């Protein structure tokens, strides 16, 4: 089984995993980082969003052996001010999509610290929320203090 070296949340990790393992599977099952959720497993819902070199990607359709940068998961963002902003805005209901929302939002505000409502809607459109927390998410990103 090929050995794989990755940097995840600033730490070097080495894992044995068969080729074909998705990054999401690797994170959740091999590295115990279950904050990243799998909801559709085919790149349609955004729940599995992680950052690779700061860019939001879908880890469920990213092959672990093709990862070409530093991976940031929700675990690596636990001190990010967006966490508090989401809680205060009540931007969470069942919470299953929320880690992916935060990862996408963190990437957005890193490039654009004060996005407009239209920019938020455009850049967060790949994170589906069935509970409908969208207005709260928009408020969280508009009001975050970073």
């Amino acid at each position, binding site marked *: 089984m090929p050995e794989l070296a990755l940097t995840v949340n600033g730490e070097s990790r080495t894992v044995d995993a068969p080729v074909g393992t998705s990054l999401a599977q690797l994170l959740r099952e091999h590295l115990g980082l279950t904050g990243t959720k799998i909801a559709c497993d085919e790149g349609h819902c955004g729940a599995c969003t992680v950052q690779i070199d700061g860019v939001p990607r879908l880890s469920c359709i990213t092959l672990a052996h093709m990862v070409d940068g530093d991976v940031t998961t929700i675990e690596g963002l636990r001190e990010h001010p967006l966490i508090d902003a*989401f809680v205060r805005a009540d931007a969470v209901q069942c919470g299953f999509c929320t880690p992916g929302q935060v990862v996408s939002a963190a990437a957005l505000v890193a490039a654009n610290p004060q996005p407009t409502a239209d920019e938020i809607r455009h850049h967060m459109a790949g994170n589906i929320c069935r509970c409908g927390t969208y*207005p709260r998410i928009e408020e969280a990103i508009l009001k975050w203090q970073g």
Partner: protein
Amino acid sequence: MARLIRTEKEVEGRFEEIWLVIEEDPLQQWPAGPRDVVGRPATRQDGPQRVRGEAAYTSDLQLPGMLHTAILRSPFAHARVNRIDFAAALALPGVRGALGPGEATGLDEEAGYVGAPVAAVAADTFAQARAALDAIAVDWEELEAVLDPHEAVAREIFTAPPTRYERGDFERALAEADVVVEGTYRTSVVLHNSMETHQAVCEWVGDTLNVYISTQYIWGIRAEIAEALEMPADKVRVVCEFMGGGFGAKNGAGEYTFAAAELARRTGRPVRCALTRREENAAAGNRNATIQKLTVGARSDGTIVAFGGEFVNAVGWSGWSTMTEGPMKMLYACDNVRTVRYGAKINTPPMKAFRAPGFVEGTFGLECLVDELAAKLELDPLELRRLNYAESNDGTPYSSKGLAACYDLAQKHWDRRDEVRARSGSTWKHGVGMASQIWFGGGGPPSYAWTRVGSDGRVAVVTAMQDIGTGTRTVMAQICAEELGVPLDRVEVVLGDSARGPYATLSAGSSTVPSVGPAVRAAAADAKRQIVEIAAQRYDLEERVLDIRGGVIVSADGNLSVPLEELLGVLGDAQILGKGARGPNPTGMSVNTFGVQVAEVAVDIETGEVRVVRVAAVHDVGRIINPLGARSQVEGGIIQGVGHSLSEQRLLDPKTGRVLTTTLESYRMPTIADVPEIVCEFVDLPDEHLTSLGSKGLGEPPIVPTAAAIANAIRDATGADVHELPITREEMLRALREAEQRANAGAKETVAAR
């Protein structure tokens, strides 16, 4: 002293009679208005956990040696498994066990729809289990399949006998009406598609079965499993602290749970059975399609004198036939109502309860019909609703009804019509529409809670309820903190485990706050009473002069002020344990929730694009405990309503009955870019007859009127009548063309008449 009574319980519009034990004296409701904690916005206790990804869902659970299950599903709309052979499958690498039809509840020999579960295989990895499915040899016998609900009705293939209802004399009243409006309305199949799929992990520990499951009803799962496996219920432990959405689809155990339990028993290993997203779309339940032929008759002054409806619920292979005619029977004062409802049994995936089942569909038809009546009568639609206000539920008084207050609060949103219409240009037309709603949501007994106060003055509310994302955990903490008199951050809620805590009702049917809330308050009151008794003895004062405020025991004259932990500190390891139970609902009263939504839309009349620009929602659900969480419920319900209205539709291949929209790319739910501006208001007056809280449930009401409000706004903007959900571009263009033809015919008539 325990008293045994017989009382009525309602869940999602279905009523049953139950026995109930009542123990303590009822508490007085708090006066209306925000209190120290109740009625004030509170962020979720478990918010940081969920947001940080630290909440453990069933899908995150990994137990040592855990196996993974794949389910074999019927490729035919109707078939029987005559023979099944697992030999080749069991020989594949990693495969540890297999179940055929009849070997677990939910795996059936007769498959009634494409996707019906017939067998299950467990293996070391999910990929191995999936591969093994192809190696199972099955002799299928194809049977006749009925896919068309009209055919089922014609042939009388029903899930239950037709439901007929009549009050007054519909025929006569209709004949005497000045104006009659008729219409056929259709709603499509929509899917719950919670973000966490249906799944369970089962593990036997000795003769106890641990079931970790994504569910809305911990205790219900316990009972179902115990009955199916013929075990004592207390040998089944059901755990669900965090779950990724339900909306009614996760009220029961499902084949995945039973299969996992049986495979775990046979292999001696923990077993996970999780549906894939494709299975979720194909076979995990749905809001069934409806066809509604509706009639309304009114006098020219706007008094509705007759309502009639023929309702066809395309239920599917199994499930129940929801009360689609409910709004027609209940929303308005009308003496003459006649309805018939058919539950068509067809070879399609069975329905499951979905957020206000039947009433979303029925309100769409009814409120569009009533709006068309308003147009024909040339009356203001809101005035027409007010004119036909029902003061009672066909003679039974309401425990409380704030619909008039909702109309009053909605007036200012309704008054925006001219301003909104003025934005119309040559391609984009703007309009405003409204719809009102009635639903249930009074909850009911039984439910229980314990309050545990430690010597450090910290409080735990313990009840085996579930918080499915509605924020009920925080609501319970607020209720306890308010009753006990301690700061909110001293209260922790322990939930989600049937082995830890007493029975709590399911989180569906808008039940949790009105059912568990009063039990929590009663438990807190019990603990408080004990603390006051102790304080009275310790400080040699009368109980009636003592109170707890802000975590401090105080006397009425202000001389005593002792922090709770100081009094209780002397207890050491001993604890104060309070218990509480949900009492009965008021007898002889109809307990309902009400609301109005006003939608503003923009329609591109050349391309058929519909945008929902703004929705103002006013809801009456009794006293609001947490205004922050309550607003989130309203927004979430409206957004699901927008999805139902515009882009969500489960499609079947008409030849084979196979679901075609199996992905989240083809089944389109709203994104953040599809969300209108949402303005949310509550009447927020306690229902003085309902429990010690006066609170009703809010989970369902917000989704009920949204589709109708949107359709009515479209008519206001364009003159076009949409009679079908979802309002696709195809449907919108059809309706626009029809409106144009009507207008031209009208113009020709006028010309001809001159």
